[in-house]
């Protein structure tokens, strides 16, 4: 690439059709005639002529499922109207593969801790759960429900009505109390372990601040 791309670029007449096609294809959205001229470095007349040929080539070829259409001053590449039924088949949802254990785990952690942040879920599961959370959102098992009042304002998640319906409200009430599923427990465990480790290096030691340690059974009593 050169430093001043707008000036040096030129397309030969032979290169113009392919260039137009590539731009319309990659864009996906309508592209204006002005923009086409600007990019290809051609005048309007030449561009229009090339676009006309391109349009004809696609629209008149029965082997092609694509057409090029003009919308006022924009041009767009899209599927032909006759392709609707095949595309309906393409877009028809297929039965989904069963959810993975990881997905159920993430859902369970959210159910136990809601409302809960991504970081909290990760802390309980011990592994990153970002992509799974996105999938659960997409599938409607969980939803966003505000943000946590903490730095970065992380999003909070909760389970949805759909989850309740599928799982059964009674089942939810019967969910056994599980300390090790709870973010608060995990956080406390992590904290106390950190403190125990930290006593070695980052704390002014006082008699009241000793870690309890199985090897020093008496220290708790001091």
């Amino acid at each position, binding site marked *: 690439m050169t430093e001043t791309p707008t000036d040096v670029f030129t397309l030969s007449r032979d290169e113009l059709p392919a260039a137009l096609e590539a731009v319309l294809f990659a864009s996906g959205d309508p592209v204006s005639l002005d923009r086409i001229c600007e990019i290809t470095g051609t005048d309007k007349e030449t561009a229009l002529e090339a676009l006309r040929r391109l349009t004809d080539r696609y629209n008149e070829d029965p082997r092609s499922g694509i057409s090029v259409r003009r919308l006022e001053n924009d041009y767009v590449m899209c*599927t032909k109207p006759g392709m609707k039924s095949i595309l309906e088949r393409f*877009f028809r949802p297929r039965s989904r593969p069963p959810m993975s254990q990881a997905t159920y785990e993430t859902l369970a952690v959210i159910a136990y801790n809601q409302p809960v942040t991504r970081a909290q879920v990760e802390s309980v599961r011990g592994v990153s759960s970002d992509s799974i959370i996105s999938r659960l959102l997409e599938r409607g098992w969980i939803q966003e429900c505000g943000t946590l009042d903490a730095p970065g304002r992380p999003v909070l998640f909760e389970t949805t009505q759909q989850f309740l319906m599928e799982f059964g409200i009674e089942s939810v009430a019967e969910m056994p109390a599980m300390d090790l599923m709870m973010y608060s427990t995990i956080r406390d465990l992590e904290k106390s372990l950190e403190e125990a480790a930290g006593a070695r290096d980052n704390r002014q030691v006082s008699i009241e601040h000793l870690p309890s340690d199985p090897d020093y059974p008496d220290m708790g009593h001091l």
Partner: protein
Amino acid sequence: MPSHRVPDLKIDRFEGPLDLLFHLIEKNDIDIYDIPIAEITDQYMSFLHGMSTPDMEVASEFLVMAATLIHIKSKMMLPGIRTGVSPEEGEDPREELVIRLLQYRRCKILAQDLRGRYAYYAGSLTKLPTLPKTLEITVQSVPQEFEPDCFNRAIMAVCARNEVRFADLSSKITHLLKREKVSIRDKMKAVWQKLTEKGRIFFHEIFPVAETEKEERVAGFMAVLELLRSNRISADQERPFDVILLSKKEERTRKESRMYLKEPHHVRKENQT
């Protein structure tokens, strides 16, 4: 064969010892199947002497190759081994090296090919998926099966994992503290010595903040606790973070209080010490 000096070569110009060796072979226009190993080893070594690299890991890779070359060179000097590879002869000590060099050469060629392919093909773009909505196609959502059993199993799995996770962590920390024990023993001796000399002393006099590492102070503090527990000393602190005054207990008082406390655990511990 050109001179043994290999000037103007920087180690970061080479991807590794094989790359360097390969460079020497190409530069000297050597038949890869019949490498004059003595010459190449000398050139390789003179390069190694001239190189300066702060990265020990990189340097060690080059040194391993140097050792290999010297090993081959010494083998070549043994009687009965001639150069050249023909089926009648015994195994050529250079064979493995040649295979590695050929392998590496092919790797380089293929890498070059991939680089060219990437430069050529990487600019290809795909189109963003067309949304069904823009085609006026409505997509019915397919319900996702929910298995309460899987859900319950997942709960158990998370809990079980967390149990292991925290048991692991706490045992690691216990281990760290155990390691300290060795120095705690030393510190106990040091504290006891000071108290034998002076009778009473402040904790911070034995372990001055300015002159000791935190770890040492913690170990010292642990030592004080051990001595307290074995009832050899007493410690006074008015409130947390305040100074701690240590004093030695007299033999008689110690015995009395021990009998008074009658804690078998303490007795056992003391006997160990």
